[in-house]
């Protein structure tokens, strides 16, 4: 039972309390760049869930069974993880182009840019070196914990970007002061959303 509770807390913590976009400011480029349309936001969210979960799993295995035994983890983890992510993104790009050309067109430049979507590297790094969410228990995540954590992060990203896209579609038709048109008002909106998310702090003592 305690085991299940820990997974639940880990998931919720990654999803809401330390939301990757609004609380930790990771992956904001795509957050502002792609969220002006609902459809692309959903596509991007799905792409991130896919790439992030697989890349975290692969990085965790590489870290535990290759990098640590060879004692090169400390100075090789950045290049190794980023190459894993770049390769996965390439695979996914091919898969989506084949499966759904309209979605591929809609996501445009942002699909290859998932490589530089900081969220993916951050999640991969944190699944081997937990930073924010230690839960005061084990310092190292087990394989399952790493997956649950990454899923929480990825879902948190998807939910927030979809909410943000919905709000921005409404703002497009609202009267906004001249100087605030476009990005500035989007930032103010994000500030208010972030303020709401700070309300989750200390939820279940996280």
């Amino acid at each position, binding site marked *: 039972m305690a085991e299940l509770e820990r997974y639940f807390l880990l998931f919720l913590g990654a999803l809401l309390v330390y939301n990757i976009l609004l609380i930790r*400011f990771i992956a904001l480029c795509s957050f502002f760049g792609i969220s002006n349309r609902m459809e692309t936001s959903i596509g991007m969210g799905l792409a991130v869930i896919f790439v992030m979960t697989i890349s975290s799993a692969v990085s965790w295995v590489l870290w535990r069974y290759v990098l640590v035994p060879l004692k090169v983890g400390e100075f090789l983890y*950045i290049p190794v993880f980023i*190459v894993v992510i770049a390769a996965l993104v390439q695979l996914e790009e091919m898969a989506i182009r084949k499966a759904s050309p309209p979605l591929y067109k809609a996501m445009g430049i942002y699909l290859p840019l998932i490589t*530089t979507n900081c969220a993916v590297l951050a999640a991969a790094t944190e699944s081997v070196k937990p930073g924010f969410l230690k839960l005061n228990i084990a310092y190292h995540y087990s394989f399952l914990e790493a997956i649950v954590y990454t899923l929480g992060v990825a879902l948190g990203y998807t939910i927030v970007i979809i909410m943000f896209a919905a709000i921005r579609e409404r703002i497009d038709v609202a009267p906004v002061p001249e100087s605030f048109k476009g990005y500035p*008002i989007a930032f103010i909106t*994000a*500030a208010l959303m*972030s303020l709401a998310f700070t309300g989750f702090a200390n939820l279940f003592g996280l």
Partner: protein
Amino acid sequence: MANMREVWEDFKNGLILENPLLRLMIGLCSALAVSTRVENGIFLGIGATFVLVCSNIMISALRKVIPDQVRIPIFIVVIASFVTIVDLTMRAYFPAIYARLGVWVPLIVVNCIVLGRAEAFASKYPVVRSAADGLGMGIGYIGLLVVMGVIRELFGTGKILLFDKTVISLGTVFQPPTIMILFPGAFLVFGFLMAFLNWIQNRG
């Protein structure tokens, strides 16, 4: 031989005209997250500038040998190597600041500015111009980090600390609104900065 005028233009571009944060809207994440203190901004900015200049030089020098299809992975590996240098150096010499910056140092790898400039500039232009471009972009980045840091630290905590010394203090009369150093403050300050810039442009 690249002429001086061109090099100067490339350098100047990054400062305001094509400022990576305000104009190109890239590299935002780190800028918003670390700007709670001026000091953090300066250190991360210097690290990122080092990576930008070095990777621009390296990629520009190699641009004729890198095959087009695999250029992105190659760029990333070049960038990752320089980031590792920054990561280890900072951890060795400035452990306190490294601890505060946390995951942001390794995340310079995926800072869109670095890869963006490699792809858009360094892979097309000669070494000297690429170095100038990297330096200009880097200084533009540091500049904005410092401006954001000053606003947020000064109004969020009432004073500015540099190397544990108080540089400016607003005195005890001023009750600092904590929202400025909390997460929403970053979005607010940045939104207003952009609106201010738009306002100046529209007026002129």
